[in-house]
């Protein structure tokens, strides 16, 4: 695929283009790391797209206090949303899907509210040169986004493999009930996973905001679908229990390559959504068929 596209599209192999792909992949990847934690316990968060927008708006609003404070506030905001999602899911025992679905609506309203009150709904330009340059930082020529992704991925793997929380998450295997019966503190691990997810989303959002130097109420909208697709490509099953973050990265990479090809050939934006949605379905299908073949008993258990 790479060969075909490099022949077909004149600008494909310019380092700028490949860099773009890598960067976008990393941003999605960072969010996917967080989502992985949730998926491993059988939940997911549908509101992450709007969390991204919220974080960008928070940064824009608090920039006058300085860069560090605004970043810290943004991270706290993100984690707050995650905490709320987690608490409602565990304490009120409401299905996580519905909670995050509702949160999606609530955040949408909140984002619009903030956006309307500041600039009558327009995007907010963040007038801070240093912040804008965060995105441009390099570590031996590797963009900071990629570095952050790799670092977070390594941390995540370490947590999952070598800590008690990580072990409990794997053991949950997508079924919170059995985990609870096994003595796992489901409240703690659910909260941990929601917080981890929102933290990753917030980090990614900060980097994204730095890249575009604007904040808007719709900045993150497309990311919910992309992140879920990424995780599915990476082989994280909803029956839980197995997940590999680096698989996810390569999956997202492939996806972004496809997206990039479309962009370069000037295909309309909405076809991107079509392809993204279809990729999700196709990957799910492949995943489902290979799983069934491996263990027929899983067919009954599915859901």
């Amino acid at each position: 695929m790479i060969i075909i596209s490099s022949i077909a599209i004149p600008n494909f192999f310019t380092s700028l283009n490949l860099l773009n792909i890598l960067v976008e992949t990393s941003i999605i990847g960072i969010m996917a790391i967080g989502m992985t934690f949730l998926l491993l316990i059988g939940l997911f968060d549908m509101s992450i797209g709007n969390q991204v927008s919220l974080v960008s708006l928070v940064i824009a609003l608090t920039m006058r206090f300085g860069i560090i404070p605004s970043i810290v506030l943004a991270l706290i905001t993100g984690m707050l949303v995650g905490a709320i999602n987690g608490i409602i899911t565990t304490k009120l025992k409401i299905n996580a899907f519905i909670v995050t679905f509702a949160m999606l609506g609530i955040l949408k309203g909140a984002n619009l509210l903030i956006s309307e009150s500041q600039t009558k709904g327009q995007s907010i330009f963040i007038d801070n040169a240093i912040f804008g340059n965060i995105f441009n930082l390099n570590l031996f020529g590797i963009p900071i986004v990629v570095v952050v992704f790799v670092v977070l991925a390594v941390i995540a793997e370490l947590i999952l493999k070598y800590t008690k929380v990580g072990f409990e998450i794997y053991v949950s295997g997508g079924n919170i009930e059995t985990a609870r019966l096994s003595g796992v503190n489901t409240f703690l691990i659910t909260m941990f996973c929601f917080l981890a997810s929102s933290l990753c989303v917030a980090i990614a959002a900060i980097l994204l905001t730095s890249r575009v130097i604007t904040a808007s109420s719709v900045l993150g909208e497309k990311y919910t679908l992309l992140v879920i697709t990424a995780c599915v490509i990476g082989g994280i099953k909803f029956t839980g229990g197995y997940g590999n973050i680096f698989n996810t990265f390569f999956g997202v990479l492939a996806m972004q390559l496809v997206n990039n090809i479309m962009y370069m050939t000037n295909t309309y934006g909405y076809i991107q959504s079509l392809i993204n949605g279809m990729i999700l379905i196709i990957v799910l299908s492949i995943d489902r068929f290979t799983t069934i073949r491996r263990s027929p008993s899983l067919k009954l258990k599915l859901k």
Partner: protein
Amino acid sequence: MSGFSLKKRLININGIIIALLVLIVIVSIGSNKFLSTSNIMNILRQASTLGIMACGATFVMVGGNIDLSIGSILSLCALMSCKLTAQNSTMAILIPLAVGFACGAFNGLLVGKFRFNPFIATLGTLAVFQALAFFYSDGKFLNATQNNFYKQIGQGFFYKVPIPVIILIAVFLIFLYLLGRTVFGRQVFAVGGNPECARFSGISYAKTTILTYALSGLCASISAIIFVSRQMAAQPQMGAGYEFDVITAIVLGGVALSGGKGTIWGAILGVLFIGILKNAFILLGIPLYYQYIVMGVILILAVGIDVISEGKTKNA
């Protein structure tokens, strides 16, 4: 489990009845325009599309699943219907209906046959159908060709009652019968309430699911036609976000997310609640963003109350 007796049904929905009455009282106090005939007719006309979609969505949810793509199906069918008014009314009605049914059936295939997680699958089809809608209209607004018969669907009256309301009542009665009094309805309850048991009873999960999703898609297309007829225009994102209102409405009305519980009556009452609430927003001049927040909070409260009451009956 299935709430067929009148008493059980009343218990299931008395919460929403109370909430509805309270809401009506509050809004009547808040605005003197609320109880006028024209306003009530307006509410009913707006709520009719929501109500029709809620009927379909109820089937899916009672079956233990969810359909997030109904908004996109509405957009797609609306655009098709709009473009086809240039041919003749019949095609502008029949073809979108078929497309809606087909989209629903596709969802049903993914969830019922391939056993994907319904949230993930319909999230994917949401994107796919929405993109198809964009593709179909090239991203543009579409204007419908003037057509008296077609116009009547959304804008006409039948003895002072708006035709959309008539369609809603018809759909309501049909679905009420389907869910409450047919074998199929019972199967949907069984599959939603206890899939394992249903399987042992010989009920095909795949067939039931495909049918419920197809009905949901069909309802979306009916609403789409009414929408287009009302405005005589369509745009690619017409239905975006509608699934949120529909799901909130039916959950408010006592349809359980986990499946196996709920009534069409409850769904309609939930729709009325949302319809009045939205009308209240407009009458009281509440800005759009607050609406979103309130709706989200209501959804959580509705499900929360549902869960708590379920917990109570379990312990009883």
